[in-house]
């Protein structure tokens, strides 16, 4: 999914999605809930007070567990 598609789905500018991806913008609760609803996940899956682990580390750990 492109930035533009997500931006249109949640009703913001596609630059705003870019700044969210980079962690340079903290969204309002309404925008966070809209994005979470769009992906069908809980808002904690997308936004957290702590930094998320890099996806490469998560995949590595999952591989080691298996």
């Amino acid at each position, binding site marked *: 999914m*492109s*930035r533009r598609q997500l931006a249109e789905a949640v*009703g*913001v*500018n*596609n*630059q*705003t999605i*870019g*700044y969210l991806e*980079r962690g*340079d*913008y903290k*969204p*309002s609760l*309404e*925008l966070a809930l809209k994005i979470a609803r769009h992906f069908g996940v809980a808002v904690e899956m997308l936004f957290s007070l702590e930094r998320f682990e890099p996806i490469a580390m998560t995949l590595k750990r999952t591989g080691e567990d298996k």
Partner: protein
Amino acid sequence: MKSRRRSILSMLDDTVRWTGMPARVAAQMSNDPDRKHRPLRWTPIWPIASSSALFILCLFWPPALDHASPGAVVSVGTVFWCCILGALPALHVNGPLGKSSLEDDEREAALRKDSFLFCLGLLAVLNGLGQPILMILSHWQDWKIAQTASVLTTAFTLNATLLGCLPTLYASWNLEQLPRE
């Protein structure tokens, strides 16, 4: 002959492309709002610097200005005022705050609010400090009518320039360039 003519035409095309104007015109005519309203980090500094320089010139009032003809001073001032009046809307419209506020999303609305709050706060501080200083200076240096009128006019121009340029400058420096997808 034909191939030579074509090569001359293609060379002319290359020359035009080398100037960068076709790409610039395409960007200006693009409907993509991100390309139209790009950050202007340096351009707004020019009007602010020239307005400030003119204000400082009138404040210190070199003796040569006493001998300048009033017509020449008024003409130069009018030309400068017209240039500033023309540049301010162009800078605002092409900058990151240029599009209508009705189209803003929450991030853009917050950026617009912060930019204007910063600008109006700075203007309030500058004017609050500057006006008593100007009053004291005018009394202390015994300003004549011409200098008083010039300082007032240039101070007003500086205020208008700051009001027109500072929000664009603030917003431009607060916008990081995003990498393309």
